[in-house]
């Protein structure tokens, strides 16, 4: 299985710079866990950060700064890699949901769609969305930027077919409708800046769904 849809280079640069917020970073980092190609792009952007740090005009530390740090070294035990059990959810997402995708407390939105909020910071938020096999999610407009990555199953929209690890960025004003693959539910991790606007009956439900 190879990933067909990736975040843009410029988005990975912003992530590497530390300029993306927590919700966006969670979606990007979860994609990185599944995509060695984008890890390499991110490593390049981080290397640019290293070069900029190297080129930064040094600002003198306080007198005694090193002694102060030295005196605290003994209390700073060496960090060790964390032992982790295999799972269907990679880090960093697993720490956010506290385990696997099984046994989550989904909030049912409507027939075939369930939702689980994860991060809320200012206007942006990250959440899981689960759609049932074969479910059609009607035409909706993104009122803000949205980033998403597929965790299980898959879906199709006018731009292509999205499966595990695939990343999709939609801009404010983009419209689309999706159809979930048959076979298993599709779980997507998404960051959005504003509630979706559905063309039809679901507006009120969706508003409640997003807590607006």
């Amino acid at each position, binding site marked *: 299985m190879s990933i067909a849809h990736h975040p*843009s280079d410029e988005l990975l640069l912003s992530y590497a710079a530390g300029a993306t917020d927590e919700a966006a970073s969670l979606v990007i980092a979860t994609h990185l866990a599944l995509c060695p190609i984008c890890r390499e792009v991110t490593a390049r952007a981080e290397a640019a*950060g290293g070069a900029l740090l190297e080129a930064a005009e040094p600002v003198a530390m306080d007198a005694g700064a090193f002694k102060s740090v030295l005196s605290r*070294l003994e209390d700073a035990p060496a960090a060790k890699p964390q032992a*982790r059990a295999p799972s269907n959810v990679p880090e960093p997402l697993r720490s956010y949901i506290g385990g696997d995708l099984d046994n989550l407390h989904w909030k049912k939105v409507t027939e075939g769609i369930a939702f689980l909020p994860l991060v809320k910071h200012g206007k942006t938020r990250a959440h899981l969305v689960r759609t049932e096999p074969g479910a059609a999610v009607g035409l909706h407009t993104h009122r803000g930027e949205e980033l998403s990555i597929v965790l299980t199953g898959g879906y199709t929209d006018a731009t292509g077919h999205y499966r595990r690890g695939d990343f999709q960025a939609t801009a404010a004003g983009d419209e689309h409708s999706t159809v979930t693959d048959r076979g298993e539910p599709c779980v997507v991790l998404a960051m959005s800046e504003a509630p979706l606007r559905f063309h039809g009956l679901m507006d009120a439900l969706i508003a409640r769904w997003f807590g607006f």
Partner: protein
Amino acid sequence: MIHTGAAVVIPVMIAYADCAPFALVPRRAWTRRVAKSMEPTANPAEMTALLASVGKARDKAAFELLFVHFAPRVKSYLLRLGANAALAEDLAQEAMLIVWRKAGLFDPAKASASTWIFTIARNLRIDAMRREKRPEFDPDDPTLVPDEEPQADAQLSRDDESARLRLALTKLSPDQAQVVEMSFFADKPHRQIASELNLPLGTVKSRLRLAMARIRTALGGEA
């Protein structure tokens, strides 16, 4: 003025500087700076060796050399991002403590010492100054899809890449340098950069994309 002076100064500086991309240097200080930049800079391979030695042998002498080189640069980075002097000092010390604690996890095949320390400083300032978590993948996670082929000469190229990258960064166009600067030193996502520079979002993205292409070329990747 919509934004701070940084964005205005950079294009001027980029045009003149060979060794100090993005530093906010008034023109009249340039002569002094050039002289300074001629001094031998830290040898990336040596910094990597020092960091590895801290990781393997808990070598305090090696740690002191890393501290002398990196702590004042981390402090500078934090000041640029809006920390006051006391906070920048505290966080720079804290960053070096994290370097000490995590040195055993440093993988010279993945990053140079300066890149690795940059990521520590970046994560620390997101945590302390933005009060948000910094979600990152875990290279030791068994669920992570592994790299396709290990690079045999990775260490050589990582140590060597620093100088090539610095050169490439000085060669960015002023427009590209400005948006890279705002990403790394002003904590601005694309849309905020676009609104502050009064540019279409697509223009900001394409400038960053071109900058990434330059970085990729400098590191010897395929374009």
